[in-house]
């Protein structure tokens, strides 16, 4: 179907703005932050949020905890923002996390893992892994969750590069025998970094926000060598066994180089016997998860994702 009209208007606005090239990473990161600040927000109601720090063996990570305004759910979503492993932060994805928390009633812990190229594969993933383990150990303290309910149900999620990291954390949790994850929410994830010639890479190479060229540049920033892309922790789609993974919801956008990455991962999970639901985004583009305030179809898909999360983690 054609681009949703609100998305088309958004792309026109974007085209009129100056864009820093990825080769100037400082300017690029500033641009990403600036454009996130100018996006309209829905700002759905939550009880509050607070910043905290997560110690890992390698560093101390900033994180932000979002508390829902409803009682009764004790779930916790550990969230990894997108940005090509090289840009964005807690602030750029603040509205997204607020809305997810509000609609799902699930606490959200957004993690500022360290960015490439200063920190390259697999170390940003290590940050996400350590943060997830920390969240599992400290879920009860990440209050004010209802007392007397059992241990928290834990999920991981993320968009784009963050979806890639979340899928890899789920693989690592299975390999390590814990922590137990009840769900993985993968929003237009990159799942096969060794293959950037899928039909969606070709069909949506330019004109829809994220370009195929930018995606290839992000991959080069994240990985040390092309060989890294063959590791399942970089390309979850290449994992020899995708069975026994937590239930997955995979959101894709029609006009997105990464559309096939997401769709193929959903198929592969199903083929391996893991529970996976694919929610396609007709008429949508990459980044739609942050366009809920201007795009009704984006809001509907993100709210569906939040309700799915509530079902998985609620009670």
């Amino acid at each position, binding site marked *: 179907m054609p681009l949703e009209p609100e998305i088309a208007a958004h792309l026109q606005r974007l085209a009129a703005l100056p864009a820093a090239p990825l080769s100037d990473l400082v300017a690029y990161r500033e641009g990403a932050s600036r454009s996130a600040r100018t996006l309209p927000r829905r700002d759905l109601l939550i009880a509050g949020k607070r910043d905290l720090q997560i110690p890992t063996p390698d560093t101390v990570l900033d994180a932000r905890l979002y508390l829902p305004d409803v009682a009764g759910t004790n779930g916790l979503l550990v969230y990894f923002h997108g940005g090509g492993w090289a840009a964005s932060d807690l602030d750029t994805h603040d509205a997204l996390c607020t809305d997810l928390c509000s609609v799902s009633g699930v606490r959200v812990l957004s993690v500022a893992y360290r960015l490439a190229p200063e*920190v390259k594969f697999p170390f940003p993933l290590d940050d996400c892994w350590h943060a997830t383990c920390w969240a599992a150990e400290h879920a009860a303290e990440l209050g004010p969750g209802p007392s007397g309910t059992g241990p928290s149900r834990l999920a991981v999620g993320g968009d784009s590069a963050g979806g890639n990291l979340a899928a890899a954390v789920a693989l690592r949790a299975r390999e390590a025998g814990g922590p137990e994850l009840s769900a993985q929410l993968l929003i237009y994830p990159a799942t096969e970094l060794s293959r950037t010639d899928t039909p969606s890479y070709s069909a949506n190479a330019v004109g829809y926000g994220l370009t195929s060229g930018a995606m290839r540049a992000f991959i080069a920033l994240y990985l040390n060598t092309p060989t890294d892309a063959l590791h399942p922790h970089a390309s979850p789609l290449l994992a020899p066994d995708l069975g026994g993974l937590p239930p997955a919801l995979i959101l894709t956008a029609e006009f997105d180089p990464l559309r096939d990455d997401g769709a193929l991962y959903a198929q592969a999970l199903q083929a391996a016997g893991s529970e996976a639901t694919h929610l396609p985004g007709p008429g949508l583009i990459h980044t739609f998860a942050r366009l809920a305030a201007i795009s009704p179809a984006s809001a509907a898909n993100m709210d569906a994702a939040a309700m799915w999360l509530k079902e998985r983690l609620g009670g």
Partner: protein
Amino acid sequence: MPLVPELQTFLAQIPPAPTERPSMEQLRAQAIAGSALLPRRAVEIAGTLDITFPGPASELAARVYTPTGTGPFGLIAFFHGGGFVAYSIETHDQLCRELCAGSGAVVVSVEYRLAPEFRFPHPTDDAYAAVKWLGVHAAELNADPARMAVAGDSAGASLSLAAALRLRDEGGPKLRAGLLIYPAADMSGQTEYRSRSENGDGYFLTQASMQFFGAMYLSSQEDALHPHVSPLHAADLRGLPPTLVLTAEYDPLRDEGQALAGKLWDAGVEAEHRPGPGLIHGFANMTGFVPAAVQIMDDAAAWLKQKLS
């Protein structure tokens, strides 16, 4: 100067040695348990990877510490101390993190085989093989084989020097530097060192322990005199890379460390000696609570950074 106050407290808390020597299994377990109790100071690195590589007789484990920033980085092969018989990658994890963060180099901590199951020369074979392997595979670790160093503490310093001698004599990557932290440099028993008697008891490492370690590591007096064991006795030290020797004032090994630095200097090596006033053997693992140890270890890491830049 007197012992720094933090170490006075630390030594006062060490329980008296049992009358019966513990089994090797107990000794190793105690070493690991004791290390786990030491406080750690926060340092930032990119992360670690556990790898294995082909050793002379078997696959050997190693942990790769990568600094933040953009490589290729310098590369430090690290060998932990422990009298050739105990300790591990885990017990020296914090030390390696600090070296990595402070030097900006990739640090590879090598799990060489321990005595008495594997006596001399097996641990030196492992150390030499590790550095040679790293020279070939540096690029895979985002490191530059032209900017390599060896480093180690105590027994690990002895292995570092043995590896450097073998690299010089038998071939392998050319080293830019060696960091020897309170090295055991003379296990022959033929030379009297004042520090061995003055500090032989009551300062963590004891002279009795040193004798025990020698008995475990070495098979004969011939071994004890080997240049790869007692470089102060026999070795021709010419052509070694710039070397920094750290010693501790209250350490049985203080005087041989100092003598080694002097002998290196006499052999034309760019050698430096940094004494550790008020410190004891093991201070490199005590940066979490001994400020004087922080200073000397940070200086050593900065020295490596400069040599590997």
